[in-house]
């Protein structure tokens, strides 16, 4: 068997795949954050908790009602997105005239409430969610063994990210959205209901987080803390990429996932912090972020 830089190819490609999987989640979550930030100007701290909710609602659907994974992919984002709409209407909408930091503090509080409630109900040990039968097993690619479900996660994430990018950059609705980001007053004067658009945008961002949660349920164990640490890494991803561009958020997410995977091969001790180190370097070299507009 050949070796690359003294690393067996199975290990290398295995970690690369793992990095790509993590990157899929970074991309989906930072995309949601970027979409919300673009229109609402707030950082949605409860994004990680809403991702966790997505995984839990999928688990509940399967356990209590027998609704399978494929329906969960459709139902969960709608249900969790609806809770996002309620939160935006009842709470976040009251803060738009204030400093953006209050939005951060409010959503941090919401994250604590959501995580605390789930921890009370389900404890901290993970709940199992099995891989759907259609995607169990794997494919032998010759140089490595590719589990089908993981391949599906990467493909699904790429498709969803691309669809979101297309919807925002290439459609009429997306044009309204981008216009409202630039100048909400003017867009409102053209007869477009900007407050409703803001509400639905938040709902959509939350739905993206929930979708990521459903995709994650069969890979990671479903537990109340699954989103808490992940969201901090995603914040670092967002700082590195800059939130100015949708495509930038997607590319940074996948890219950093792969970098993290490679670090796990060559310097395992550093894999937990490599993204934070990259963030430090980016702050030194290009403070606005790789794809950010200079302030």
């Amino acid at each position, binding site marked *: 068997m050949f070796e690359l830089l003294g690393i067996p190819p199975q290990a290398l490609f295995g970690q690369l795949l793992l990095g790509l999987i993590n990157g899929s989640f970074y991309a989906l979550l930072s995309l949601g954050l970027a979409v919300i*930030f*673009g229109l609402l*100007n*707030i*950082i949605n701290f409860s994004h990680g908790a809403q991702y966790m909710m997505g995984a839990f609602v999928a688990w509940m659907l399967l356990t209590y009602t027998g609704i399978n994974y494929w329906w969960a992919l459709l139902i969960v984002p709608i249900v969790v997105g609806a809770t996002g709409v309620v939160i935006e209407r009842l*709470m976040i909408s*009251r*803060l*738009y005239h*204030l*400093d*953006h*930091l*209050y939005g*951060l*503090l*409010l959503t*941090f*509080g*919401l*994250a*604590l*409430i*959501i*995580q*605390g*409630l789930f*921890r*009370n109900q389900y404890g901290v040990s993970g709940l199992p969610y099995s891989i759907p039968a259609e995607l169990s097993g794997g494919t032998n690619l010759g140089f490595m063994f590719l589990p089908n479900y993981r391949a599906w996660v990467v493909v699904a994430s790429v498709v969803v990210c691309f669809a979101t990018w297309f919807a925002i950059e290439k459609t009429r609705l997306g044009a309204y959205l981008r216009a409202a980001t*630039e100048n*909400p*007053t003017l867009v409102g004067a053209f007869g477009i209901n*900007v407050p409703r658009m803001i509400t639905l945008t938040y709902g959509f961002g939350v739905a993206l987080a929930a979708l990521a949660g459903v995709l994650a349920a069969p890979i990671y164990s479903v537990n109340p803390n699954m989103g*808490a*640490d992940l969201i*901090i*890494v995603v*914040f*670092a991803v*967002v*700082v590195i990429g800059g939130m100015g561009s949708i495509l930038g958020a997607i590319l940074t997410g996948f890219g950093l996932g792969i970098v993290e995977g490679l670090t796990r091969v060559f310097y395992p*001790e550093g894999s*937990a*912090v490599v993204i*934070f*180190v990259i*963030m*430090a370097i980016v*702050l*030194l070299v290009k*403070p606005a972020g790789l794809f950010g507009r200079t*302030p």
Partner: protein
Amino acid sequence: MTMPTETGYRSQAAALPVGTPRHHMVIFAVLLVVLLLAPAVLYPVFLMKVLCFALFASALNLLLGFGGLLSFGHAAFFGLSSYVAAYAAKSWGLNPEIAILLGVAAASVLGLAIGVLAIRRQGIYFAMVTLAFAQMVFFFALQAPFTGGEDGIQAVPRGRLFGLIDLSADLTLYFVVLAIVFGALLLIYRIIHSPFGQVLKAIRDNEPRSISLGYKVHRYKLAVFVMSAALAGLAGATKAIVFQLASLTDVYWTMSGEVVLMTLLGGMGTVFGPLVGAAAIVTMQNYFAGFGAWVTVLQGVIFVASVLLFREGIVGVLAKWLKKPL
């Protein structure tokens, strides 16, 4: 709705006037008397916990309320300092005052390193950057050989102050902690009312104008960041000596959130708000200690209620009511 701008937080509370109002001195004096008598009624260890968190929250408030910078990673300084102090007291057998000073030094150095990077961004980005770096410190504390991993550093000796005074009795230690915390609170008060503090408030309220007036805004921000980190470190190191323990809880992001909550609840940008906030949250935690994650839920509810209903905080509301800055 405006374009996404990166502005610092502006205090909602009544602006503090130039100079030191006399009623502040009266409040400080009353506070000192109350705290000196308090151990007769309340358990000293509980009081020391309140004092440590009051200092921690005041350190954050110096940065947030007066510098306009929201750090979501202050647990890094609090936690690192408590690890250093605990290690110095236990493994090197140093006196508590030296151990605490080493902790403060470590927190200051870390504050300088993180501050240099973090002040390159503002507003919510600043919050995210500090949070991310604090998480890095958390991973360091989890993996480093001398931190004891999940167990932390336990059974830290309280030792003898200056090699003379035995601190193993709670009451003796209480008066030492009171002296440390009260001294630090007066120092923070002095910083706020110094010319440096006035420039800081000017930067918070209007950064472009401060720049055009010729102030080196970045230096002021970095200076206040390091001061805040050092004071948070003082709180963390003192707590490590009091509880004879340094653990991962002290350096985790939940701790950063807690201290933000204390400051928010008490009143950002007020002198006495963080003290009230810390006392309220520590009491609440003690009271609900047996209810598991309900403490987290309740903290979240207080966060949401504070942001939606009274952004000035308890002391901010009082100050408005009394028409006096507190």
